[in-house]
């Protein structure tokens, strides 16, 4: 999911001003303060760190760990300034509290690849403040000036006397001392941890099967609930016969929860069999004739008329097109996509008369917490939300309407015992909140010398921001920033540019999906530029070089990827290369994809990825995110589409919403471009360039231009 670019830039500015995080870091959470009456056996200088008497350092992480490595990278940044013993550091997920809010959005959430950008400095400040107090405590104990003390690996040292104390030995003293308001941060040149490849803190538990995800939570007396959802968006149960379901041993209750009919049982299998046995008469509602084919036709028609909502206007694209020597017009189509996290959606609720606890792997603590409290009719203070690991998020676990959380609380209200709401894979695939379907129409004009003089881009698709609390942040002058990001900030030097948007109103629920708007715009922009290079008989790299004047960081990654891939040297016979470069989430990624004809099919063989995401926190995580992004992007390129017929989603499980498998995964070589710029996003920026780089390589190999995703069988013939 995303924040709009302007807000990320705001974060960058806040970071530069060096005060934004400070206020955040040095308050204790409301919930922790409530616990402060009890005697402490730890030093708790602020909301983000706790040092125990045995020297163990607990870092409180306010972000969702969904694979992107944030648990480790935020701990690293705090531990760096604390000079902690890294082997004694572990992370803990934060409770819901305003002190843990996203510094840009003011709510506790994870998304937009903003965690490092937004929380890196606050974590460093929290660590530095804790360190300063521990130094003061040691200096007092020794009766020496604090300025004579230093710290390293979880100890305060006094070099002059050769004395040293472990942080754990200073906990009780430190707990009585004031925490300084402002402490200078380390010069990055002195970093010993940040910037070095570091093992993830969550690996051992994940490998052993000990890590607790939402679906792993168990409570005494807990029941399992499945909900039979209507077959159409906006449908409702008109009536149902629960007899056969209730006859199944283990099935306890069947009732309408609005979003469908809930079946509560003593376990998953009974709940599933009960749900299978339910006889429901649906009121299919107003969307029972929705068809993605018809939508696609409607979108194409819309795209053929530029919209008055103009996101970018440089010069006069229409006039330049009219006077151009050559013009090109193309149409690109992309489908709805499901996020398909490996851990199906779920939520555990323990609702009592006057209080409630929830366990969820969520990207949206504040909103889920508020929605759960409102649904239960409880004051928010009486509701505790426990964050677990997320078995994948990709934006699906950041829903402004908290769909499955609200459903879970409704089920709990009707049950009278703790419940675990589970969505099956089919529920998830068919349950909506998809990456929107997108259609783009692009026109370009070249002058007599082949120079690109005009670029007009009309985008058609739904807004998932409209009507949410994010509207004020993201929609400006009627234009949803997430619809046009990656297109309106076209980096290429073209004198006449117009990017406009038709926002459609369709009943299919949509949502941000890893890399958000960039997931469609990068494909369209980078493919069309490739088309223009070939049309004007220029090398795709040479054309980009020419048009990226002044965009040094774009050029930096582009040149690196090209060089590493051997661009310009002939590929092996039967192989071909394609490239793409894209800026998203304040980071720059270029890819050179190599494909080959194998047994008459085009296969992905190798990708050279170059990335510039500013100063690196954990280089190994950056590599991992890009390796994974290649597979994630390739899945969408080759396989993924959610289609609708008669209002029904046609896909259900991984047999028809396929994931890339190991035998289809290309070799990935990640090249890290060093930078002193602020640390920026890495969870999402690897995804956008995959589809265009692959399809550009496909074109180089076969001469076949693909303008519709996912690829069809015939597109891949070689």
């Amino acid at each position, binding site marked *: 999911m995303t924040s709009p670019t302007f807000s990320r830039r705001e974060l960058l500015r806040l970071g530069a001003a060096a005060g934004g995080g400070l206020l955040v870091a040095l308050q204790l959470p409301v919930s922790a303060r409530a616990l402060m009456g009890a005697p402490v056996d730890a030093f708790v200088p602020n909301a983000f760190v706790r040092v125990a008497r045995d020297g163990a350092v607990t870092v409180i992480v306010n972000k969702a760990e*969904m*694979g*992107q*490595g944030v648990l480790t990278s935020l701990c690293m940044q705090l531990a760096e300034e604390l000079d902690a013993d890294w082997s004694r550091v572990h992370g803990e997920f934060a409770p819901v509290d305003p002190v843990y809010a996203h510094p840009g959005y003011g709510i506790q959430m994870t998304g937009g690849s903003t965690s490092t950008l937004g929380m890196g400095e606050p974590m460093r400040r929290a660590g530095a403040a804790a360190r300063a107090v521990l130094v003061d405590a040691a200096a007092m104990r020794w009766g020496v000036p604090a300025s004579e003390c230093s710290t390293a690996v979880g100890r305060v040292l006094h070099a002059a006397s050769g004395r040293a104390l472990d942080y754990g030995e200073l906990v009780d003293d430190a707990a009585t001392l004031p925490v300084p308001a402002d402490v200078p941060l380390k010069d990055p040149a002195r970093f010993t941890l940040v910037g070095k490849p570091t*093992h*993830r803190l*969550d*690996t*051992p538990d*994940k*490998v*052993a*099967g*000990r*890590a*607790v*995800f939402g*679906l*792993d939570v*168990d409570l005494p007396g807990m029941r*399992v609930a499945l909900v039979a959802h209507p077959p159409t968006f906006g449908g409702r149960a008109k009536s149902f016969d629960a007899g056969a379901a209730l006859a199944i*041993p*283990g099935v306890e209750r069947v009732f309408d929860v609005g979003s469908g009919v809930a079946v509560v049982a003593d*376990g*998953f*299998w009974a709940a599933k*069999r009960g749900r299978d046995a339910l006889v429901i008469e649906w009121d299919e509602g107003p969307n029972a004739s929705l068809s993605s084919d018809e939508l696609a036709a409607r979108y194409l028609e819309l795209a053929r008329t530029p919209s008055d909502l103009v996101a970018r206007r440089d010069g006069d694209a229409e006039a330049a097109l009219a006077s151009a020597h050559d013009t090109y017009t193309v149409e690109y189509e992309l489908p709805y996509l499901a996020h*398909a*996290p*490996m*851990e*199906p959606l779920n939520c555990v609720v323990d609702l009592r008369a006057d209080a409630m606890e929830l366990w969820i792997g969520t990207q949206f603590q504040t909103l889920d917490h508020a929605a759960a409290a409102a649904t239960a009719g409880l004051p928010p203070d009486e509701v505790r939300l426990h964050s677990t*690991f*997320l*078995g*994948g*998020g*990709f934006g699906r676990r950041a829903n402004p309407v908290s769909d499955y959380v609200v459903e879970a609380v409704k089920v709990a209200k009707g049950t009278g015992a703790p419940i675990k709401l589970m969505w099956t*894979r089919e529920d998830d695939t068919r349950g909506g909140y998809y990456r929107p379907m997108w259609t783009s129409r692009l026109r370009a004009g070249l002058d007599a010398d082949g120079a690109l003089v005009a670029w007009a881009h009309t985008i058609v698709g739904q807004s998932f921001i409209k009507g949410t609390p994010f509207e004020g942040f993201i929609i400006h002058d009627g234009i949803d920033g997430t619809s046009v990001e990656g297109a309106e900030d076209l980096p290429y030097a073209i004198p006449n540019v117009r990017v406009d948007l038709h926002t459609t109103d369709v009943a299919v629920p949509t949502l941000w999906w890893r890399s958000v708007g960039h997931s469609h715009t990068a494909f369209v922009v980078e493919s069309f530029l490739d088309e223009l290079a070939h049309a004007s008989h220029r090398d795709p790299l040479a054309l980009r070089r020419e048009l990226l004047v002044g965009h040094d960081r774009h050029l930096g990654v582009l040149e690196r990827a090209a060089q590493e891939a051997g661009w310009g040297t002939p590929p092996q016979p039967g192989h071909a290369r394609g490239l793409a470069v894209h800026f998203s989430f304040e980071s720059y990624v270029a890819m050179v994809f190599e494909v080959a004809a194998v047994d008459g099919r085009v296969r992905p063989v190798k990708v050279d990825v170059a990335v510039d995401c500013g100063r690196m926190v954990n280089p*190994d995580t950056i590599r*991992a*995110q890009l*390796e*994974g992004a*290649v*597979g*994630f992007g*390739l*899945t969408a390129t080759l396989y993924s589409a959610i289609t609708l017929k008669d209002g029904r989603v046609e896909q259900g*499980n*991984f*047999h028809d919403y396929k*994931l*890339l*498998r*190991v*035998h289809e*995964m290309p*070799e*990935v070589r990640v090249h890290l471009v060093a930078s002193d710029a602020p640390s920026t996003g890495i969870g999402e920026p690897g995804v956008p360039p995959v589809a265009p780089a692959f399809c550009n390589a496909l074109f180089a190999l076969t001469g076949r231009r693909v303008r519709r995703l996912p690829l069809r069988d015939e597109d891949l013939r070689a």
Partner: protein
Amino acid sequence: MTIHFTVNGRAVSVDGDPSRPLLWVLRETLQLTGTKFGCGAAQCGACTVHVDGRARRSCVLPVLSLEGTAVTTIEGLAGEVGDALVRAWTELDVPQCGWCQTGQIMSAAALLSERREPSDAEIDVGMSGNACRCATYVRIRKAIHRASALLKGGAR
């Protein structure tokens, strides 16, 4: 109808619906939640366990088929192959979200038990029943080669 088998060496008796898949016995009855639910259709492999030493997808394996068998889950994975895999997976930080990884490791154990030094093509066969949405395949492949080297004793 009571079905008797062992899980990680411990005797287990299961009553009730004989069509109930093993996965739910593990996760709900025995609280062995290291075995994961991903699809319920043997499509993703997150639920992979060993039955009498062979990899099986527990989400489609009815308990009635288990009479007299020995089930091993990630919690009970032991021996040199298991140790090598856990070490390799940890050294290479294979997991991202982590949901599918225990199933990946159980499949990798079945592969290595049969083939100590699998080639890339053999890994492609042995591991393609396990899907990973984070697409950690690059490291899964590396980790299997690494575990193989550890088993061979040729590890650095």
